[in-house]
């Protein structure tokens, strides 16, 4: 053990390679270190995004300008959206846990292209830096919202250019990660691991990676066209020159709807890992989960129009998009049935990751069902661009992806750091967070139905009641987040050391390697004989 250069028996955290200090991380091609690089970057920016959100909620605690005016509010929701969507949830689970655990779970020593993987992280960071310059240079921070709708995005004097270009660069990073994962899964599964013996988290990463490859170029070119429009005035989205701003909306959502599945599919994968382990039961309907994952990835391409029901479309297009939107909800519902059936008659082990997983199912269902309200034409017209939409996507993106992220963090934490967190604090943090979360977002559904629009710093006095609850909820939720993060950060450095390989009784490969894993994960590549979830009941 003393020889910290030997890749076989030294933990990836202690390994001393050719670089030292910080360079040993930011130039490391080890998939585990890259995963942690993403984790730390995201943690930092999530905190920024959360503070921006808290400021907005504080502004909305009373009608009129409370702590800021319209300009500041517009800048805040734009930056909040860009950070949360492009920096946090799109790379999200694949970049952190996919990088760390995909190779281990399929019995490989690394991803197919380790150096490309490092390049992805670098592009991601460069993209972030470019986005940040939009805040400080030029004529003020962008105020378009994260959607950069034309024609405003090339007419506003605000500094939209770096924000758009930064998002473009991050898209590049996302594509490269996608390519890396698809090739890794095709070429590097351990002997005996047939497609249907592959665990579900890798499966969802596979579906996600395909969407990353096939959808991201669309946003890439769309953002480039906005850049060209701003710099050169080519006219493609400019009605004054004959262009069509609605075309921008189409192109934007052709990517951005599939992108919501980039956000949620890996989360579904994490939940599919955790539920069987803490129910001590084989997952119910493994194949149904796999097929519904691929179905979502496929049908998800054909529903983008549901974001544009009020933008002007032919009647036939309207009901086609509405119908397909209802179709795409089915595979998600199938998964919910699978998870619930897995828990049915299981011997439940109530631990922190399981709390997160179960609450995921709860909030995900609220988010999904309200998605159907939005997907049906008549109701959409009533609540489009109101707080109802804001509540819907927070229940799904934050409730879904966010909860899954927390579940993953608490599930794999001991493996990643070789230390255990304090369970009491973790559970307390979860409880406070859960209460705050619902207090924050649930009232927004009602406010939206009453007609409170989104993206305004002010509102009619009629909406005051709901907003008070919502804003107080935000403060409660942030308290929960602080407890959770403080506990995890403290534990990563000073928590009780553990070398126990399998604290939760999991059956997938990551629980058979050392804790923390060695540099090369496996001394010998394992041969797989059984499916991934054999609990021998």
């Amino acid at each position, binding site marked *: 053990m003393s020889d910290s250069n030997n890749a076989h028996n030294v933990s990836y955290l202690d390994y001393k390679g050719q670089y030292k200090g910080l360079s040993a991380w930011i130039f490391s091609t080890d998939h585990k270190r890259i995963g942690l690089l993403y984790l730390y970057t995201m943690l930092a920016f999530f905190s920024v995004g959360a503070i921006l959100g808290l400021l907005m909620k504080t502004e909305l605690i009373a009608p009129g300008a409370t702590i800021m005016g319209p300009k500041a509010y517009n800048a805040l929701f734009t930056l909040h959206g860009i950070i949360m969507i492009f920096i946090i949830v799109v790379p999200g689970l694949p970049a952190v846990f996919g990088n760390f655990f995909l190779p281990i779970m399929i019995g490989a020593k690394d991803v197919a292209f380790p150096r490309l993987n490092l390049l992805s992280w670098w592009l991601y960071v460069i993209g972030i830096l470019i986005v940040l310059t939009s805040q400080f240079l030029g004529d003020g921070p962008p105020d378009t919202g994260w959607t950069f709708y034309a024609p405003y995005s090339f007419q506003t004097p605000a500094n939209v250019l770096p924000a758009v270009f930064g998002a473009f660069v991050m898209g590049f990073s996302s594509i490269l990660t996608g390519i890396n994962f698809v090739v890794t899964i*095709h070429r590097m599964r351990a002997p005996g691991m047939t497609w249907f013996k592959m665990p579900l988290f890798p499966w969802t990463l596979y579906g996600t990676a395909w969407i990353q490859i096939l959808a991201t170029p669309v946003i890439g070119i769309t953002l480039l*066209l906005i850049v060209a429009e701003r710099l050169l005035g080519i006219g493609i989205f400019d009605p004054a*020159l004959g262009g069509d701003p609605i075309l921008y909306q189409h192109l934007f959502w052709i990517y951005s709807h599939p992108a919501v599945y980039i956000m949620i599919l890996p989360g579904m994968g994490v939940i599919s890992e955790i539920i069987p382990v803490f129910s001590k039961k084989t997952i119910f309907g493994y194949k149904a989960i796999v097929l519904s994952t691929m179905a979502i990835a496929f049908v998800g391409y054909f529903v983008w129009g549901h974001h544009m029901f009020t933008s002007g479309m032919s009647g036939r297009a309207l009901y086609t998009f509405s119908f397909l939107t209802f179709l795409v909800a089915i595979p998600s519902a199938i998964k919910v049935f699978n998870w619930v059936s897995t828990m049915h008659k299981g011997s439940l082990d109530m631990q922190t990751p399981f709390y997160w997983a179960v609450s995921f199912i709860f909030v995900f269902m609220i988010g999904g069902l309200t998605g159907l309200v939005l997907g049906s034409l008549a109701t959409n017209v009533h609540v489009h661009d109101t707080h109802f939409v804001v509540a819907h996507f927070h229940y799904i993106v934050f409730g879904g992806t966010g909860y899954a992220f927390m579940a993953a963090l608490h599930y794999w934490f001991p493996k990643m750091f070789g230390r255990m967190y304090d369970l009491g604090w973790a559970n307390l943090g979860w409880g406070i967070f859960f209460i705050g979360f619902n207090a924050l977002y649930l009232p927004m559904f009602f406010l939206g139905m009453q007609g409170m629009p989104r993206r305004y710093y002010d509102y009619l006095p009629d909406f005051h009641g709901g907003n008070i609850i919502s804003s107080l909820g935000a403060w409660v939720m942030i308290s929960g987040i602080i407890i959770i993060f403080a506990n995890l950060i403290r534990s990563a450095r000073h928590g009780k050391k553990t070398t126990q390989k399998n604290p939760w009784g999991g059956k997938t490969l990551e629980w058979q390697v050392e804790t923390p894993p060695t540099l090369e994960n496996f001394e010998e590549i394992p041969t797989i004989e059984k499916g991934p979830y054999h609990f021998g009941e």
Partner: protein
Amino acid sequence: MIEHRDDLASKMGMWLFIFTELLLFGMLFVVYAVYRSMHPEAFKLASEELDVVLGTFNTVILLISSMTVAMSITSIQKGNKKLAMTLLIITLVIAVVFLVNKYFEWGSKFEYGFNPGGEELLQLGHGTILFFGLYFVMTGIHAIHILIGVGLFIYVLLQLRKDKIHQTDYIWLENTGLYWHLVDLIWIFLFPLLYLIH
């Protein structure tokens, strides 16, 4: 750590990347199709303003360069390093010639005020403005790809000279070749769409 080598994986990664490029240009083709169907007359007239002779010349040399890069790969497979390098240099020169032609072609458009935001262009109808907007965006993004190709050729040539690329390990050359075929292929679509259909 020993770098593990899997040429098939590298090629697969390259093909996936090519997919993403096709989608990127595919969306431009969609935008082109939409506006062409809205302004068929203006697009027809505007496309007659383009220099078909120069365009044809560029098409021909680009096709030849696709052939030379393919031949370069075959040469390295046969272990003929010198021939591989010569063929690659020819490819590189053709790429540069293509860009020089493009420069003159664009230059003449600027001269006549047909650039985006140009005085002349803004006098004309919406269809013409959109055509030239698309013309500059599409050929511009394609030219950036040519430029990246030039960079790749230089890198591969250096690696060849240092014998880092050789008879049994030439995946960089092969993938660069794939990339170049893609750049060529996209031009094969751009050329008729912009210059030929009347």
